[in-house]
């Protein structure tokens, strides 16, 4: 999306924002390709809707008919278990039909191009593509090729917007709980000045790119911590407060320690002398975690390499919210799907959830 189009989308959103009878305002957007498509206001809105779905997820029957009749395709050209399951769970809890596209046994393996594959599936009449691809920009390409809503579920080193959103959702939820308040009451004030350290392979991380944009938009102060080989090029142009090569120095000034997964092949000698040396300098263990600022959170997008970026004992420390990230992933993806695909009748998300649930119950499910 060009900045012009973004501006138009933003304007449209602003205009409809005061009209409570209009569709969810993010519905004015066609796609979620980058966190920058949302901006601070959009992120806040996703979090608000997600909170409603967090509540739904706690019910006996965690399912609402909000997207009944809609078809969501998960197009995972690069393998991923957790993100795919999370999106599919989210779509199913919204009563959408889910078509799962398995790249390893698909026509892509027979030499069909991605474009032909996508156009073929789109011709069947689908409402959204959830795209995971090893090449940056692949979801943007899909969005150009077909007239269907596209959600980026991770593209190369570029972005993984729903991961960043679920991270924000988790931080807000935990900080609100500590204050004894509902997350919705706190708004996004809790991010102002929040000191976030993103540690590890930033260069090759789509999670880092999305998180930096999201945390930055909400007013957090992000510090990147990595050896020089794992920092991105032109890092001085990134919207971060600082860059460090010394984890021990950064930890005492850190409220959220966000660990990135170190892919095995990075330790093979081109980027790092060894995984062992990396773990010694940048791995978070209990001793280091104890030096974090009071009440600091430890986060990880998963899957974890225990003993590399995160010591075995760390996920069980009180400050670790790693499993909550996973749980919130479903609610956040429900929110994004609902906001992009929901009908104007949905009015507000809370209304949609309550109202449509009645319909669900009377339909005898």
């Amino acid at each position, binding site marked *: *999306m*060009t900045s012009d189009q973004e501006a138009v989308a933003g304007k449209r959103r602003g205009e409809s924002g005061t009209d409570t009878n209009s569709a969810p305002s993010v519905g004015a957007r066609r796609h979620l390709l980058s966190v920058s498509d949302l901006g601070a206001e959009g992120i806040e809105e996703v979090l608000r809707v997600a909170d409603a779905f967090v509540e739904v997820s706690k019910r006996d029957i965690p399912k609402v008919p909000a997207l009944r009749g809609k078809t969501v395709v998960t197009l995972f050209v690069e393998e991923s278990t957790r993100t795919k399951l999370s999106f599919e769970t989210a779509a199913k809890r919204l009563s959408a039909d889910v078509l799962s596209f398995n790249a390893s046994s698909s026509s892509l393996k027979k030499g069909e*191009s*991605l*474009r032909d594959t996508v156009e073929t599936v789109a011709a069947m009449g689908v409402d959204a593509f959830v795209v995971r*691809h*090893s*090449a*940056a*920009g*692949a979801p*943007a*390409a899909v969005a150009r*090729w077909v007239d269907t809503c596209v959600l980026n579920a991770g*593209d*190369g*080193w*570029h*972005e993984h917007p729903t991961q960043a959103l679920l991270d924000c959702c988790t931080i807000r939820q935990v900080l609100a709980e500590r204050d004894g308040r509902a997350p919705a009451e706190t708004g996004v004030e809790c991010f102002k000045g929040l000191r976030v350290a993103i540690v590890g392979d930033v260069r090759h991380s*789509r999670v880092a*790119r999305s998180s930096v944009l999201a945390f930055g938009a909400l007013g957090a102060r992000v510090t990147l911590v990595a050896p020089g080989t794992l920092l*991105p*090029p*032109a*890092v001085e*142009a*990134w919207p971060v407060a600082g860059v460090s090569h010394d984890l021990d120095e950064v930890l005492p000034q850190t409220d959220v320690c966000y660990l990135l997964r170190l892919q095995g092949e990075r330790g093979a000698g081109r980027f790092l002398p060894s995984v062992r040396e990396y773990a010694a300098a940048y791995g978070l263990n209990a001793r280091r975690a104890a030096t974090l600022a009071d009440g600091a959170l430890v986060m990880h997008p998963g899957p974890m390499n225990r003993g590399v970026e995160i010591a075995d004992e760390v996920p069980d420390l009180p400050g670790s919210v790693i499993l909550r990230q996973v749980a919130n992933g479903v609610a956040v993806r429900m929110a994004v799907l609902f906001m992009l695909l929901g009908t104007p009748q949905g009015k507000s998300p809370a209304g949609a959830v309550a109202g449509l649930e009645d319909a669900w119950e009377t339909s005898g499910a």
Partner: protein
Amino acid sequence: MPEPTEAPPVTHRGAARVPGTVPTVVVRGGTVIDESGQRRADVVCSGGTVSAVGEGLEVPSGATVLDAGGCLVVPGLVDLHVHLREPGNEDAECIDTGARAAALGGFTAVVAMPNTDPPLDNAAVASEVLALGAGAVCKIAVAGTITVGRAGEHLAPMGELADLGVRLFTDDGAGVQDSGVMRRALEYARGLGVTLAEHCEDRALAPGAAMHEGEWSSRLGVPGVPAEAEELMVARDIALVRLTKGRLHLLHLSSAGSVVLLGAAKAEGLAVTGEVTPHHLAFTDAELADYDTAFKVYPPLRTAADVAALRKGCVAGTVDAIATDHAPHRPEAKDVPLADAAPGMLGLETALAVVLGALCGGEGSPLYSASGEQLSRLSTRDVVGLMSWRPARIAQMALCQGGDQGGPITPGAPANLCVFDPTESWVVDPLRMASRSRNTPWAGRKLTGRVRHTICAGEPVVVGAEAQR
């Protein structure tokens, strides 16, 4: 080998020109510009040569009159760097269609790069290409490879190729990575009086690169190649020229640092020349913000500071030539994610207008340096020099070298002319291009400056912006 997905359409091979059959042509009402200067004059061509130049010349009976009102009449343009894809990839381009695109762009001679399939690393393939090009609507010269199979290991039979008239040798698509091989190649070429042309990039710095490494690649999460990968090889090759006394031409320079190195080599008196492409003078890496594969090109589009430095290099005379690196690709090679897309873009039909805009300060192309200072503009004559007589000399095609390109426009000189209107605006329509491919980044954009007529060896091959065969 996989079956081709679609049979290429039957190629119309233009009938070879037969000397003596070319009509007498009068180019009337234009302003003639060549290396010696500028004057209002009509030009009469007959029998393949210029027969008269002057004001108000009488039109010989039976002559074809071409209106050049408001136009500049200049020596035919010479492109040192085109990919015509034949043999091996004829569904992207062939010699005939590429030559027609060249003629429409005002070119009367092009040098076909040797990275075909099979490559031009032996006399048999080179002769075939030269034979295929003999009947084309513009002169087709070829470059040979430096090494066998462009593999960077064994020297190609440069002597055998030189005997066929090959004057440029390159492994374009890749640089010669091994310094020892490059040294020997320069030494060997020196004895043949030929020039090595290098695609400068140290591959070790470019694994998986799809664009320039910088702010944009970082933001987009796309693997990039830093400008230093080019500069390292430029610096190495210049050092090797110093060592060997060889002759080197640097292809498609894209970075500010390369221009500095080229300038220093010239100041030292080394036999080094350099070219830049129209697209590197016009675009930055910000064009890739939407992952548009039309802008994926090799070497990649770089920063605004690099664009300004390349323009400055042209204005200062450091850069010797503008070459298109015309690189046709089928849609299926571009309709893929950026990482998988083939690098390259069409250039022949848009080059002159793009360069006029970039260097003469045409509409929408202000000449500013990175620091905001306004750069001096180049005269139209200097632009034509960068696209005609200067590249003609690099390719050893100039009149003084026994060739027929680059002017001057005087009686007795070969009739290779480009007639263009520097003020005519047109919108680029890929479907109307002569190239067999459509991968132009200028699709739908308005350009100013259009070729009206092209005369190749006395034959009007383009008249009124339409190819004649």
